[in-house]
C-alpha cells in the first residue's frame, strides 16, 4: 500500500514537471491534457514495413511525446482480422483514443464503431471506416498526382508521348490514377502509349525490367509518369540502362532520402516528385485525435497538403536528405493542419 502510494506520488510529480515544462511554451492545455500522462492513446496499424510507415510511426511518436500522452502501438502486419481484434484489445485496455492506420473498410468499420460505442475517440488515416463520428486523415493523393502532372506539363508542354506505371486495386494508386485520367482528358495532346507496373518485390528491380521492355517497344516516349517512388526508381534504372537519360523525364509521387539522391544525380531523368511528409501525416493524426479528446470540433476530412519537389529545388538548395528537405522547405516539415493555439508541437 505504502509502496503504491509512493509510486503514485512519484508519477504525479514527474507528470506535473512534464506538463508544466510543456505548458511553459505551449500555453495551458485543456482537459484532459492538463494531466496528459493519464491520457492513453493507441495506434492500430495495418501496414508497417517500409520507409513510409516507419516515418509515419515516428511522426505519431514525436507528437504523442510533445503532448506527453501514453502511446501504445498495435501492429497487425497486414492481417485484417487481427487488426480488428487489436481495436478490441485497445478498448479492453481502456484507452482514451485510437488512431487507425490503414486497413480494410470491411473489417475496420464494425471495429471502429465498437470503439465509438465504448466512448473512445477515433481517427482514421487512409482507411475509410464510413463513420461520421470519425475524422478521416488523408494525404491527398489526387493533389499529389496533380502537382506532379502540372510540373510535367510545365516542362514538356501539353502534347507528349507518355509511359504510365500503374497497378490497379491499390487505393492510393487508384486515387492518383483518377487525376491522370482527368489530365489526359483535358489535354488530348498527351498520348499514353504504354501502361505497365508490378508490385513484385524488390519493386524497383521488377519495374526496371518491365520499363526496359517498354522503352524498347516505344522509343518515342518522352515522359514517364510513375506516381509511386518505388516505380520511379525502377523506371530511372531502366532509362539509365537504355541510355535515354537526356530524352526522358520522370514525374513521380512520394519522396525518401534515396529518392533525393537519385534525383540529384548529374543529368538525372527524375525531374520532379510531389510528396507529403509521412512524419507530418503521423503528427496530424495524433493532433486531430487530441482535438477530439479536448472536445473540439474537427472537420470530417483532414487533408495534409503535398509539396512539389523538383530536381532544381534540390540542387539549388543543396538538399541531400530528408532532414535537409524539412529544413529548407518549411511547408514540407510542418503542415498547418489541426493546430489549435494550445497544441504543443514537436521540437525540430
Amino acid at each position: 500500500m505504502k509502496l503504491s502510494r509512493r509510486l503514485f506520488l512519484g508519477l504525479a510529480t514527474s507528470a506535473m514537471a512534464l506538463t508544466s515544462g510543456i505548458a511553459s511554451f505551449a500555453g495551458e492545455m485543456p482537459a484532459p491534457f492538463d494531466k496528459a500522462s493519464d491520457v492513453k492513446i493507441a495506434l492500430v496499424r495495418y501496414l508497417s514495413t517500409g520507409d513510409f510507415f516507419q516515418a509515419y510511426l515516428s511522426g505519431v511518436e514525436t507528437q504523442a511525446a510533445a503532448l506527453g500522452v501514453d502511446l501504445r502501438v498495435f501492429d497487425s502486419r497486414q492481417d485484417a482480422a487481427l487488426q480488428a481484434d487489436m481495436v478490441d484489445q485497445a478498448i479492453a485496455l481502456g484507452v482514451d483514443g485510437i488512431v487507425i492506420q490503414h486497413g480494410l473498410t470491411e473489417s475496420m468499420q464494425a471495429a471502429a464503431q465498437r470503439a465509438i460505442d465504448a466512448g473512445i475517440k477515433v481517427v482514421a488515416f487512409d482507411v475509410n471506416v464510413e463513420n461520421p463520428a470519425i475524422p478521416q486523415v488523408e494525404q491527398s493523393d489526387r493533389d499529389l498526382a496533380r502537382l506532379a502532372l502540372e510540373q510535367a506539363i510545365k516542362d514538356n508542354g501539353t502534347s507528349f508521348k507518355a509511359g504510365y506505371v500503374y497497378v490497379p486495386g491499390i487505393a492510393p494508386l487508384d486515387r492518383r490514377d483518377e487525376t491522370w485520367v482527368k489530365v489526359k482528358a483535358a489535354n488530348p495532346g498527351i498520348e499514353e502509349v504504354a501502361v505497365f507496373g508490378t508490385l513484385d518485390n524488390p519493386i524497383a528491380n521488377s519495374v526496371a525490367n518491365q520499363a526496359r521492355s517498354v522503352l524498347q517497344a516505344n522509343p518515342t516516349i518522352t515522359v514517364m509518369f510513375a506516381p509511386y517512388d518505388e516505380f520511379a526508381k525502377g523506371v530511372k534504372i531502366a532509362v539509365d540502362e537504355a541510355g535515354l537519360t537526356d530524352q526522358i523525364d520522370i514525374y513521380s509521387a512520394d519522396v525518401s532520402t534515396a529518392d533525393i539522391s537519385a534525383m540529384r544525380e548529374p543529368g538525372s531523368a527524375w525531374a520532379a516528385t510531389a510528396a507529403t511528409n509521412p512524419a507530418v501525416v503521423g503528427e496530424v493524426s495524433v493532433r486531430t485525435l487530441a482535438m477530439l479528446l479536448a472536445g473540439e470540433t474537427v472537420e470530417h476530412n483532414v487533408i495534409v497538403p503535398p509539396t512539389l519537389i523538383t530536381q532544381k529545388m534540390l540542387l539549388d538548395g543543396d538538399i541531400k536528405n530528408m532532414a535537409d528537405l524539412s529544413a529548407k522547405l518549411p511547408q514540407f516539415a510542418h503542415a498547418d493542419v489541426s493546430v489549435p493555439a494550445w497544441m504543443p508541437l514537436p521540437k525540430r
Partner: protein
Amino acid sequence: MQTDTHKRPKLGALDLAIKYGFLALLVGLVLFFSLFTEGFASPYSAVFIFQSVSITGILALGVTATLVVDGFDLSIGSVATTALMLSSYVLVVWEMSAFAAVVACLVMGAVVGLINGFLIVKMRVPDLLATLGMMFLLVGLQRIPTQGRSISTGMTLPDGRVTEGVFPPEFLALGRHRFDFFIDRLIPVSVVVLLVIAFLVWVFMEKTRHGRLMYAIGSNERAAELAGTNVNRYKVLAYVISGVLASIGGILMAARLGRGDIASGNNLLLDSVAAALIGFAVLGAAKPNAFGTIVGALFIGILLQGLTMMNAPYYTQDFVKGAVLVVALVFTFALSRRGGGH
C-alpha cells in the same frame, strides 16, 4: 513402355516431342514476338532478356544444386535480399570498400548454407522445414540493424546519426557496367556472371565425379551411401552452393539498385524455383540440370519481355508464368516416365 523406348533405334514422335518440344516452343515464342512486337527482335532486346533473368537465373542454379541431392532450399530468396541489405550496410553505414561488401555477402551466404546443411544433416530437420525457418529468420534479421528502414546514401540511422558512406563506383559497376560486344556497352556484368556461373555449375554437375555422386544421392541416397559416398558432406555442399549463389544474386541486385531495399524475396524464390522446375523438361532430362535451368529462366524472361512490350498487365504475366510451369511439369512427369531420377 520403359524398355521399348530404349530398344527402338529411331526416335518416335513422342520422344522427339519430349526431347525437343520445349526448345521448339521457345523458338516459336521468339518468332511470335519478333513478328508481332515492334522492337523485340534486336540485340538490345536479347540482352534485356538475359539481364532481366540474370538474378533469378543465378538463384535458380542454386535451387538446382539442392534439387540434385533431392533437397530443397526455400531460403534463397531471403538470402539474396539479406545480401542486398548486408552489402548496403557494409558500404553505407560501415563505410567499407566494395571488396569488403562482396566478401561479407559471400561469407554470409556460405554460413547460411552451412547452417541449413547442419540443420538438415545433423539435426534431421526435413529440408523444407529447416529452410523455411531460415527464410523467416533472415527476413527478420535483415531488418533489425536499421529498424526496418531501407538503406540508402545519406540515410538517418535509428540513433539519429546521418550516414556518410556511399556506394563506390566499383561496386555499382557490378550492376551497371556493360562490356562492348560488337556494339558498344552492350552486355551487362550480371549477364556475364550468370553465364560463367551456369557454365561452372554445369561442368561441376555433369563432368566431375562430385557432381555425379550428388545425382546418385538424389536418386537413391541409401545406395549412394552403401557405395561409400559421404552423403552428408555432399548435402551440406549443395546448400552452401545454394547460399553462395543466392548471395551473389543479392550483390548484383544491390549494385543495380544502388540502395538496400527492404524486400522479402518471395518473388525471387518463386521465380527461381519455377525456372529450375521448367528446366526438368528441357531435352527430356526429367531431372534438375544447369542447362535446363538457364533455358527455363530465359523462357520466363522472353515471355515477360514480350508480354510487357505488348502492354499486357501484370496479372496476365503471373497467369502465363503459371501456365508455362504446369505445361513443363506435364512434360516432365507424364510424358517422360523413364530414366532420370525416378
